[in-house]
């Protein structure tokens, strides 16, 4: 009897303890220099850029995005081949090694905002939630700059 109680207590500790064991890493992600460009209407997809810095000791993996702004946000990557032909494709999961930074920047990785629900208006911001493989999530407010913006400073 005693031992089965102990076992139950031990099991529930293990169960309660699990999330803190598995959510390791994503809380150490720092998002900097987030920005996006204003849209013309809502028919064209938008894009957002930022840097993800992993200040922790474990690798973290970005697995998805959510935002009220767009129905289908996803990380895409632009590549340009030897002939100068650019193409864009879903980038899949993005791993940020401990102590390193991954940049989402024009001409490379970007948060592709497909199926805009509302127009992206210069001067406003929108929330973008980054979901990580460990179950953690981080929501950042992304400033919307002008259509011709070249970087986080405009």
């Amino acid at each position: 009897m005693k031992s089965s109680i102990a076992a139950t207590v031990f099991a529930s500790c293990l169960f309660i303890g699990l999330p803190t064991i598995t959510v390791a890493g994503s809380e150490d992600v720092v998002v900097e220099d987030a920005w996006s460009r204003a849209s013309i209407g809502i028919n064209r997809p938008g894009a957002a850029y930022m840097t993800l810095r992993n200040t922790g000791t474990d690798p973290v993996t970005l697995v998805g995005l959510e935002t009220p702004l767009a129905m289908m946000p996803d990380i895409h990557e632009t590549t340009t081949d030897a002939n100068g032909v650019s193409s864009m494709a879903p980038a899949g999961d993005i791993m940020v090694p401990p102590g390193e930074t991954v940049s989402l920047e024009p001409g490379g990785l970007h948060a592709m905002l497909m199926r805009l629900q509302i127009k992206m208006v210069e001067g406003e911001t929108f929330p973008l939630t980054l979901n990580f493989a460990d179950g953690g999530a981080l929501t950042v407010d992304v400033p919307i700059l002008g259509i011709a913006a070249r970087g986080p400073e405009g």
Partner: protein
Amino acid sequence: MNRSTLITYGAAASGVLALALFVGWWQVDGPGTPEPAAQRPLPLTQMKFQMTDQDGSTVGPTTLLGNPSIVFFGFTYCPDVCPTTLSDISGWLDDLGDDVADMNVVFITVDPKRDTVAAMAEYVSYFHPAIQGWSGTLSETTRAAAGFRASYEKVATEGGDYTMNHTASVFLFASEGQFLGTIDYHEPREFAVPKIRRVLTRA
């Protein structure tokens, strides 16, 4: 180490060598060879296509003769490369100031189905005022791309939408129409601006 171990190691080593040679052949001479570098665009005087600019005027390669030109392809439903190219070019033009007053700067859409004349007019209005937006029929777009030796391809995306892969290089032409060179996508401003200045000074 006995004789049979030596033979085993020897066989493994030659296997690795053969594999390395095969991989090398595949990448350099075999089916994995990168496509040869794109051909040079024709002179503007040898191109034949007709489009409509953002103001509704009929335009074509000969419209550009008389002034140096910057021409590039893209589409307005492109969220990353195209606004970046247009804003990069706007920045170069800002740096060049009054020197670009007579320069033709033309953005040709590879997606005329969505990029109507009105859509192009609105889109280019957000960038440097020198940038024109040209839109043509599907067949005229094909003819234009062929002249510039540019390529583009429609690619289906999630949810029934599509995107366009396309040549993202920026082409430079002299005022008499001869091709002078390209600025590659994302070339830093310190290289791009002097290239354009050289084109301007030879005009």
